[in-house]
Every structure is written in C-alpha cells, then in structure tokens.
C-alpha cells in the first residue's frame, strides 16, 4: 500500500495536536489545582517548617519536638487523645453497627423515624453535645447522681459528647456497607441450611468488613482531632486539639502549636491512608448484578432491635432536647420558667446576632463558590482527555484535605496568610479567608461526591460532542450540570451544613468583624454563659434543619420535573 517500511522504532511518534477544548480544560484544571495547592499544601509546608524554628524564626531542628516529648503535660495529652479516641471508636462502631443493621436488615417499625433522628447530630455543632451533657450531668445537672460521684467534666463527658456527634458519620458508612449485599448469598446459605448465627459470621460480617474498618477510622480521626467537645466539657483533662488552642491562643507559643499540630496530623494521615486502601477494596466487592436484600419479619429480632434503636434515639433527642430546654429556661436551675432572654445575644460577649448572620453569609458563600469550584474541578479532572499525570496529581491534591484536621489547617493558615511577606496577606482576618478555609477543609468529600456522579455519566458524551464540534463548556452546561444536579445539591448542602457547624479551622481565623455563630457558642460557653451558648447552638440547629428540609423539597421537585428523562 505504501512504500514506507520503517520499523516502528525508527519512526517519529505522532504528537497529538491539542484542541482548543483540551487547552481550556487543562489550563482551568491546573488553575484550580494551583489554588488548592495554595490553600492546603503551602500552608501545611509553612506550618511544618515553623515547627523546626524557634521564636526568632531560626532553624533549631528537632529541638521543639524534644521539648514537646519531654514536657509531661503535653505528652500525656497525646496519650489522653489516643485513649478517648479508641474507646469512643469501639462504642460508636458497636452502636452504629447494630443501629444500621436494624435499619437495613430487619423489619423493625418506624425505620423512617430512626433514620431521621440519627442525622440530628449532623445539624448541630459538636459543642452542642457537650453543653447538653453539662445540663444533664454537670455540677447542677439533672441526672448528676447517675455518675456515682464521678465528674462529667473529663474523659466521661468527652467520650459521651464525641460519641454523640460522630454517630451519624459512622452510621452512614455502615448503612452503605450493609446495603450493598447480594440477597442471593443469603438464599444460597439458606438452601445449604446454614444456621442464622453462622450466616451472620460468614456472610454478613465479611460483607461489610471494609465498611466497618472504614467507619472505625473515620470515628477515630474525628474524635482524635475534634476540638469542640473537649473544649466545652473536658475540664482539666487535656487533649491534643485543646493543647493547640491553648498553646496558640493562650500562650501565643506558635512554634509549640505547630509541633502539636504535626503530632495531631500524623495519626490522621495514617488513618486516612489505611482508609483509602480499605475503601478501594470495598468498591471491588460491588457487582452491578447483585440482587438487593429484603429482610423478612422476625418478631423477636425486630422487637429487640426496635428497643435498641429507641434507646439510641432517645439519647440523641435528650441531647438536642436538653440544649433547647436550657436555651429557653430563664435561670438554670433556680428559675425554670420559659423566656427568650438567652437568645438576646447582643447583650452577651461572643459576637451577638452579627455572629449568626456572619455564619449564614459564610455558609452561603462556601456553598456557592465551593460547589462551583469543586464540581467544575472534578469535571475537568474526570472528563479531560490525555494529560494523565496532571489529572492524577489533581486528584491527589483534592483528597489531601481529608487527612488534615481542622485545627491543623486553621493554624497552618495563620502561619501562611499572616506572614508579612505573603502577597495574600490582605486576606487575613476577612470573611474570604473563612470561606476559603472552609471550602478547603471540606473539599475532599465534596470532590468524591462529584467524581462519583460524573463517573456514572457515559464517557462517550464528550466524544460525541467533540464529533459534533460542540465546545466542552456547552456540553457541560447543557448536559453534565442538569444530569448531575442532585449531586450538585448534595455537595452544596454538605458544604453549607459543615460551614454552619464547624469550629476547628475557623477558630484561629475569625476577626472581631467576622465572628461566627459556632465560635460564639464556644466563646459564650467559655465566658460562663452556657445557656446563651445553648441558644446559639440551637439557632445553628434550626438553620441547618430548615436548609435540610428545603433541600429535600427542592430535590423532590426537581426529580419530579426531570422524571420524564431520568427514566422509569
């Protein structure tokens, strides 16, 4: 056919010309990637180098670390953090497993109610649990005697309070793990006349093994790095996260704060790495041909599960209910008549109503800008052609924030953005930096949600639109966004709720003009205004619940409108 008969090795490789789309997509993706780099890696790097410096900024090697490990008080905080995290992990994992099992594998009545109650802690700042516990078991607590002379201010309070707010995080993972089973495995086991107990240990447990491991790591990391609960109810019992706060805010010892941050970061990074590996395995278990499992009624099991879930639900409602009660009561415990005095935030230290409105603005900005950047970034990464190295690098940067505890991120931001030589210094103390840190803090989960939704879309859409000479942004706007709208709403609600309730990252970064509601809860509690703190926490809870309901309604109306094309 041709007289070219060179061997492949002698020929010049074809260098693919890039289309305008390719250029635009790559440049935009690199730009978002650089922003992320700026928002996570550079601050972390600054913090890391800070931990090797003395107060004058001179390099001192591991001197700070040596000092840290030889200061018993600091060292024991690490032990305390580990102990509490392990205990809370075991408690929450056990409860979440049984609760999830009841929801997915039994015919227990009122499942919808139990599902609803379980997500309540997601709508409240982690501090709320601590405040409620004070009213239940504190010095003037209603059920103080139940503790048999022990104090709630310390490990007991931290464990219970932490368990309360991480419960839904663990529950959702376990529910997913238990939902993806194949009913045919159970039918096969039945046909082989396997005993119920043996089925549980040979089919059920192995099937959700990875989910449980993953949930365990999530609980551990959340408790280990949480700041709100130990701050409110920890008393004199020191934890790593509170240590950072004390070192930085209390003693202005930034170097030691950086050291503690690194110590806090390490277990979080390990847990994160193991979790990533485990989750990859979990996905491999999924088969698209699996038949969903439908439980059959069994009176004994269903009733005992109902009782168990009722106890858990009662506990959650008791936490929320007490916070609400305390917020409405005039003067605990002497005048229990109701009034709205505690909601008069403007007469209290902590930021007043302005803090609440700041939080709303911050959450709205975070949701809007965060969703746009995160979803578009995920799209460019997932649907771009070629440039494999760049896309992989982007993904790596995008999942990094999950490994970084909020306290560490916040402190890293101080070091990075407050540096006089940083041209971005002007951001320090503004609303913008709060929005940025919150977007970065919650980037990973949103990114993964977007990637999952995008992966479900036919990859050939991009091929077809290229053959039809449609620019990528046109297909993105006309097809990708409408089809992924549910996921986009999920991302924005996730960002909003977290922006409303987060304390850890923003605690170092707010200024007097940008106090946030969650920070106000903390500060009012710190100042002894526990009841107003409860009231502010409840304001956050109302807002989150309202937004959540609006989200459900919106999603429902959209799915109604798009029913025609979403198929049967």
């Amino acid at each position: 056919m041709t007289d070219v008969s060179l061997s492949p090795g002698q020929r010049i490789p074809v260098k693919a010309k890039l289309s305008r789309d390719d250029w635009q997509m790559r440049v935009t993706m690199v730009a978002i990637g650089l922003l992320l780099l700026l928002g996570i890696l550079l601050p972390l790097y600054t913090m890391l180098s800070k931990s090797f410096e003395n107060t004058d900024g001179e390099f001192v090697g591991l001197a700070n670390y040596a000092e840290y490990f030889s200061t018993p008080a600091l060292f024991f905080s690490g032990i305390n953090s580990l102990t509490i995290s392990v205990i809370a992990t075991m408690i929450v994992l056990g409860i979440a497993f049984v609760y999830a099992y009841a929801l997915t594998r039994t015919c227990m009545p009122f499942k919808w109610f139990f599902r609803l109650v379980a997500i309540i802690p997601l709508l409240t700042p982690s501090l709320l649990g601590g405040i409620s516990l004070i009213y239940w078991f504190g010095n003037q607590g209603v059920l103080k005697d139940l503790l048999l002379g022990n104090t709630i201010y310390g490990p007991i309070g931290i464990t219970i309070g932490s368990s309360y707010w991480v419960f839904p995080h663990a529950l959702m993972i376990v529910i997913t793990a238990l939902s993806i089973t194949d009913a045919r495995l159970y039918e096969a086991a039945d046909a082989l006349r396997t005993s119920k107990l043996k089925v549980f240990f040979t089919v059920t447990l192995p099937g959700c093994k990875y989910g449980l491991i993953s949930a365990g790591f999530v609980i551990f990391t959340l408790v280990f790095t949480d700041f709100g609960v130990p701050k409110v109810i920890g008393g004199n019992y020191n934890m790593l996260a509170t240590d950072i706060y004390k070192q930085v805010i209390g003693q202005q010892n930034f170097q030691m704060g950086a050291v503690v941050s690194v110590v806090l970061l390490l277990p979080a990074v390990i847990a994160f790495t193991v979790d990533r590996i485990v989750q990859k395995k979990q996905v491999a278990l999924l088969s698209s041909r699996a038949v969903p499992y439908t439980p059959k009624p069994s009176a004994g099991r269903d009733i005992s599960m109902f009782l168990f879930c009722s106890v858990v639900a009662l506990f959650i409602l008791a936490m929320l209910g007490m916070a609400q009660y305390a917020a409405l009561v005039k003067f605990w415990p002497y005048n229990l008549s109701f009034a709205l005095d505690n909601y008069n935030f403007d007469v209290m230290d902590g930021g007043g109503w302005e803090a609440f409105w700041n939080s709303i603005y911050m959450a709205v900005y975070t949701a809007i800008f965060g969703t746009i950047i995160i979803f578009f970034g995920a799209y460019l990464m997932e649907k771009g052609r070629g440039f494999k190295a760049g896309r992989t690098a982007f993904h790596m940067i995008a999942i990094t924030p999950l490994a970084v505890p909020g306290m560490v991120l916040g402190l890293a931001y101080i070091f990075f953005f407050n540096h006089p030589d940083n041209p971005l210094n002007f951001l320090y103390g503004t609303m913008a930096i709060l929005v940025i840190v919150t977007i970065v803090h919650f980037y990973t989960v949103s990114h993964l949600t977007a990637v999952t939704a995008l992966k479900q879309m036919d990859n050939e859409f991009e091929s077809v639109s290229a053959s039809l000479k449609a620019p990528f942004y046109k297909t993105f706007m006309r097809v990708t966004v409408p089809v992924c709208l549910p996921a986009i709403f999920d991302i924005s609600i996730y960002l909003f709720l977290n922006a409303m309730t987060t304390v850890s990252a923003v605690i170092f970064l707010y200024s007097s003009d940008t106090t946030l509601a969650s920070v106000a809860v903390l500060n009012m509690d710190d100042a002894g205004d526990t009841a107003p703190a409860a009231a502010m926490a409840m304001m956050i809870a109302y807002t989150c619940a309202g937004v959540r309901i609006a989200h459900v309604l919106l999603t429902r109306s959209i799915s109604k409108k798009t029913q025609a094309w979403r198929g049967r």
Partner: protein
Amino acid sequence: MTSDAKPFLQIQNLVKKFGDFTALSDISLDVYESEFVCFLGPSGCGKTTLLRAIAGLDIQTYGTIIQDDKDISALPSSKRDFGIVFQSYALFPNLTIYKNVAYGLENRKLPKPEIKARVNELLELVGLHDQGDKYPAQLSGGQQQRVALSRAMATSPGLLLLDEPLSALDARVRVHLRSEIKDLQRRLGVTTIMVTHDQEEALTMADRIVVMNQGVIDQVGTPEEIYRTPTTEFVADFIGTMNFFPGEVVKNGQVKVGGTLLSCSTDGFQNGDQVSVAIRPEDVNAQDISDDTATENTLSATIENMEFLGSFYRVTIDKNIFSGDLDSDHLLADFSVNLVRRKDIKPGNVLNIAFPKDLIRLFPVAP
C-alpha cells in the same frame, strides 16, 4: 470501490501502544468512498482502538491517517470530519430527541428553520418523526440507536463510525436494525466503518470485512472471500464453523490425515509440510454418494451424535473415520433435515461421506 479509485481514508503503518502493550502493530488499510467496512475480531484484537484512532479519540503512537487527502494523524476529534455512534447510544438524557439530533447543527450556527427541516428529515429517515418531543429514556433501545444514528448524520459528515452499535440490543431488534442501517448507509452513500465482534453482522452488512487478531489485520476481503477462502487459520476458525485436522502433504495434490489420503490442492506447500486440513461442516457431503461405490475422498463414517438446529442437523462423526489416532476434536457435518430423513441418518448408523476436493483448505502449522 475498484482498486484504481483513490482511497477516501488511508491508514498507513499505524501503531498504538499502551505502555508496554502493543494494541495495534503496523496497521495499513485503505477505505474507499461510500464503502461499508467492518472491523471484525474477538475482544481485545484492537478493532475499537483502531476506530478510536481514526476518530482522534485515542491518537496512535506512530503512523499516518489521511482522510480526503488531508493528513489528520495528529488532529483532535473536533478538527476531524466524522459522525460516531456508540454501543451505549450516548444520547444526552436530559435533551429531547429533537434537541439531540439538532445538537451538532446548533453548533454550526445554522438558521433555526434550516435546523428544523434537517432534523425532521433525519427523524423521518429513521421513522421517528413523531417522537421528537420525547426523551431518550422513553424510547426503546432500537429507537434510541436510530436517534444516535440521526444525530451522527445530522451534520452530513464524510465518515460514519459505528462502535458496536447493535451489541446492546435484543437479537430481534438487532437483525432488523442491521438491514435498516445498511439501507440508510447505501441511500446516503456515506463512507462507513463499523466495529463488531459479531461475524453474522459483519457478513450481512459489510462491503469489505477487515478481520483483526492481536493487533494485526489477518485478512481484508468481501464477506464471500473471507468466508470461502480464509487465508489464515485464525480467520477460518473465527468466521463460521470449521473442522481442523492435522495432516501432512505427501505429494502434489494429496495430504495424509491419520491413515487416510485425501486429494486437495496443495498449492504453496511442499512434500513433507505439516499442515492443518480444514473443511466446513456444510461442505461435508453425504448427498449424492451411493453407499457401495467408493469415489475420491469418500470415507465410511459412524454417526456419533446429532444436534437438531431447526433447518438442519449438526452431526458429530466419529473421528476414527481417518483410521488413525488423531489429536483433534470430532468431525462436524451439517446435514439438511431432508437428507437426514431420506437417508435415515441416526446415531450409530454408518454411511459414506465425501470431502469435495476443492472445498478442502490447507493452512501451515506453526513449527
């Protein structure tokens, strides 16, 4: 389609590597104007890779592609002139059928009435003119694939690429759509390349079939050529059913299988060559042979098993027919229902069968 016409698409020495794996090695092929070419082969043979290289979706590592006298080797998809249809249809789910077909036309900034006329014309052509307001999910698979075809043809591309377009459909719809696509292609006269792993599809639709195996082209030819005169053992085995027996060329015009000598053309082989002797089941003849006269290539066969396949029986014949220990499967022969009835063929019976000398094919055996 004559060989002196200028090829519309020229593929020259194409190589595609994925890391260390060579998916295409040195592929050259010419496709002529208005031709319907099928890339046929087992999964992993490189046929889809070749199609994607032609489309610019996965550009080749080495080699040249010339379309309509223009070197498109390195161009991105958006700079090439083709329409494409995928197995998954890839219809935009949130756009109506009308909007889907109009999608490419809108990008050309054509006036609205013109777009409308063109979309209606295309939907009319595939018999879906009254379905324009529906969404893809509301149509059957076959209808969706017709829409995808209309969308690909809307901008009148010079080249139509079909990537396993029928594989996701039910058997019945597939057969129906097969002739419909072929008919449409003939009417529009668009040069078409279709990738398929289904030989029946390739045999019925293609003007020429390109049989691929492990990244190379084994044979290019019309369906008849490919079926009747396969040039490699792979092609012979992959297309249709074929009996293979180990043999040896003993003299010009004669091979030895087991203990039996068979006459056949031995062109291209020398005495003593080890060969694979091949014959199709439908070429095994039991029709006009009387049971007592022994003619050329006639052997006495014991029927072992019979499989009823509707219009014919697939008969398994004891391999001892070649009176020798053969390391191969049984011999298969297709006998019509009529013949089986007339000759009262039953398992256990013995009858004479013949291997027509010009229907036996020999393939070299790799040493």
